[in-house]
C-alpha cells in the first residue's frame, strides 16, 4: 500500500507541468464535490426556512409532545416524540435483522461460493433492490403479517415479560406494528448492505489471505483474521447506508403501520407513524403553508437524525486506518 505513492512522488519531483487536461478534470471533480455540499446545504436551509414559522406557532413542545393536530393553522399542536420512537425502532429492528444476514451472504459470496454461483447469486440479491417499495408494503401487510402472526403471538405470550416484546398499542393480529415493518425494512436494506460489503470483502489483499493460509489457518480462521478486520469499517459503512434507507423509507411503512392515538407501550408491537410516513399521510391535502411547515419540521428532524447517524458512522470508519 505504501510503496505506490512513494514511486509516484519520486517521479514527479521534476518541475511540475500542469496540462489543460489536469486543470479541467480537477475543476470538474471539485465542482461535483462543491455541488453536493451546496445541494445538501440548500435542502437544509429550505427545511429550516419552511419549518420555523410553524415551529413558532406550535402550541406544544415540539420535541416532547405526542400531539399531531395541524388542520387548524391558527392552533397548531404538533410534536415528534412518537414519530421519533417509531422511526428509530423500525430502523433498529431492520438493522438487527439485516446485518447478520447481509454479513453471511457477503462472506459466502466472496469466500465460500464457487465463482459462477457467486455471480448469479449476487445478481439475485441485487434484484431485491429493484422491487418498488409499495410492493414490499403490500407484501408486508397482506402476506408477511398473517404468516408471522403465530410467531408474533408467541413472542407476546412467551416473551411478553421482556418489555420490548409486550403487547403494543395496536392489535397484534392486524400486523400494522413495528415488528412487521422492521422485517420488511430488513429485506429492503439487505441488498444495499450485501452489495457494498461484498465488494469490500472481495478486496481483502491476497497477500494477507495467503499469509494466513501459509500459517496453517483454516477457512474460518482466514475470514476471522484477515477478511473481517480488513472489511470491518466498510461493513459498518454499508450498514449505515442501509440504515439511512430504512430511516427514510416512506411508502412501504405508510402501507403497513397502523396509526394510533394511544400512547406507545415502547414494544415492537406498537403502531404509529414514522417521520416519512406521517408526511406521506398528510400530503394529500397540503393547502396551508403553516400546516405544511409542521410536516417539514418533522422532515427537518429526520434530516438531522440521518446526518447524526452518518457522522457517527464516519467517526467509526475513520478509526480504522485500513479502509480510511
Amino acid at each position, binding site marked *: 500500500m505504501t510503496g505506490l505513492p512513494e514511486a509516484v512522488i519520486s517521479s514527479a519531483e521534476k518541475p511540475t507541468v500542469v496540462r489543460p487536461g489536469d486543470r479541467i478534470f480537477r475543476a470538474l471533480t471539485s465542482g461535483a464535490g462543491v455541488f453536493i455540499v451546496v445541494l445538501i446545504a440548500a435542502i437544509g436551509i429550505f427545511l429550516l426556512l419552511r419549518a420555523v414559522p410553524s415551529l413558532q406557532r406550535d402550541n406544544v413542545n415540539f420535541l416532547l409532545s405526542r400531539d399531531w393536530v395541524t388542520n387548524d393553522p391558527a392552533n397548531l399542536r404538533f410534536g415528534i416524540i412518537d414519530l421519533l420512537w417509531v422511526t428509530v425502532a423500525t430502523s433498529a429492528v431492520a438493522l438487527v435483522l439485516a446485518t447478520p444476514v447481509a454479513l453471511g451472504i457477503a462472506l459466502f459470496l466472496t469466500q465460500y461460493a464457487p465463482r459462477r454461483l457467486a455471480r448469479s447469486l449476487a445478481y439475485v440479491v441485487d434484484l431485491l433492490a429493484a422491487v418498488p417499495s409499495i410492493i414490499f408494503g403490500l407484501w408486508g401487510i397482506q402476506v408477511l403479517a398473517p404468516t408471522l402472526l403465530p410467531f408474533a403471538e408467541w413472542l407476546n405470550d412467551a416473551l411478553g415479560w421482556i418489555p420490548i416484546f409486550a403487547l403494543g398499542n395496536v392489535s397484534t393480529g392486524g400486523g400494522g406494528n413495528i415488528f412487521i415493518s422492521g422485517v420488511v425494512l430488513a429485506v429492503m436494506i439487505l441488498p444495499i448492505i450485501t452489495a457494498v460489503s461484498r465488494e469490500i470483502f472481495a478486496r481483502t489483499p491476497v497477500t494477507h489471505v495467503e499469509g494466513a493460509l501459509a500459517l496453517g489457518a483454516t477457512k474460518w480462521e482466514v475470514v476471522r483474521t484477515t477478511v473481517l478486520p480488513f472489511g470491518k469499517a466498510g461493513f459498518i459503512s454499508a450498514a449505515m447506508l442501509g440504515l439511512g434507507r430504512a430511516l427514510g423509507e416512506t411508502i412501504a411503512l405508510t402501507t403497513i403501520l397502523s396509526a394510533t392515538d394511544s400512547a406507545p407501550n415502547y414494544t415492537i408491537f406498537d403502531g404509529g407513524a414514522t417521520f416519512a410516513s406521517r408526511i406521506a399521510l398528510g400530503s394529500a*391535502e397540503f393547502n396551508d403553508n403553516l400546516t405544511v411547515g409542521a410536516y417539514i419540521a418533522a422532515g427537518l428532524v429526520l434530516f438531522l437524525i440521518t446526518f447524526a447517524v452518518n457522522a457517527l458512522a464516519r467517526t467509526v470508519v475513520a478509526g480504522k486506518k485500513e479502509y480510511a
Partner: protein
Amino acid sequence: MKIKQSGAAIGLVAVGALLLSACGSDNNTGAQGTSSSMANLSVECGGKATLSAEGSSAQKNAMDIFAKDFQAKCQGQKIAYTKSGSGKGISQFTAKQIDFGGTDSPLSKEKGEVDKAAQRCEGNPAWNLPLVFGPVALAYNVPNLNNLVLNGELAAKVFSGQITKWNDPAIAAANPGASLPDKKIVVIYRSDESGTTENFQTYLKTAAPQAWTKGGGKKFTGGVGEGKESSDGVSSATKSTDGAITYVEWSFAKNAKLGIAKVDTGAGAVELTSASAAKAIDGAQVKGTGNDLVLDLNSIYGTKAAGAYPLLLATYEVVCSKGYDADTAKALKAFLTVAANASASELEAAGYVALPETFKKKLTTAVSAIA
C-alpha cells in the same frame, strides 16, 4: 404517492367499467359501449377540445366514468381531471388555471374564495354544483352478525371510545334479538387526510351533537382505534380484524364483503342502497341562492325521512355562471350534462349514487344557465 393511494380504486373502477360495458353491450348497440341512459341523451357537443379540472380526490373515480362517457358522446373531446385535494381545486380555479374545480366543501365566503372566484369569472358569481354523491358505509367484521343496526348516537359513541364492546347494552337495545358477541370493538379509521373522514365526522356532529364532541376535519379525531391508509387499507384491515368497524366508501365495503350497518334515523332502520341514498339527496335543502346549489348538509345528515340513508359524501364542481369564452362554456355545458346523466349502475359499481330525477332537473337547469 398520490398515484398509489387510489391505485387499487382506479383499477377497481377500470375493471368494473370493463365488466359493465361488457354486460350491457347487448341492449345499447351503437352507443359505443356507453350505458343506455347515455344513448338517448341529446348533448350539444363542440367547443374546447380538452377541458381541464382538478381538486377533490373523493370524486376522482366518478370523474373517470364521466370522462369515458364524455369522450364516447362527444367525439374528439375530453376532460383531464387531476386529483390534488379540494383546496388546490379551488385555488387553481380562482387562479384561472383550470376550467372548473372539484371540491368537497363549497366556496367559503370567510376565506374570501367567493370574491376571488367572482373575480376569476370576470365579475360574475361562481356556482357550486353538487354533482357527485358517494354513500359512506359503516362496515364491520363480526362473524354471524348480519343485520346490525346503528344510529348516529351509537356510531358517535363507538368511534369516540365511549362504547367498547359489541354486546354493550346500548347496541343491544338497538338490535333486539341479535346475538352480540362479548368482544372488543376495534375501530379502524383513515390515517391519511381524507374527505371521507371529514364528512363522516360532520355527520356524527350533526346526528349526535351530544355524543360526538371531538370536532371535525379531514383527520380522524375520535382518539380511539387504529388508522390505516386509504379506503383500500381500512377495508382490508377491517376484513382481517375480528370485531373491527370502520367507515368507508360503499364500493370498498361491498368488495371486501364486509357487513354494512343499517342506520336508524328515528324512522326505522335504513339499509344502504342506491334508492335509500337517492332519497336522502332528494330531501336535501339547497341553501345557496338561485342556481348556486350549495347544500344544507344538516338536511342530509340530520334527515328523519323514512327510508333515507343519511351518511353521504356530497362533492361539488365550482364553475363560473358567466365569464367563460364561448368555446369553453359550450364544452363545459356538454360535459356537465353528460356527467349528470351518467349510468346509475356504473356509478354504483364505483361506489357513488346517481342523481335522483328531481335533483337532476335542478342541476341541469343550472348547467344550461351557464353562459
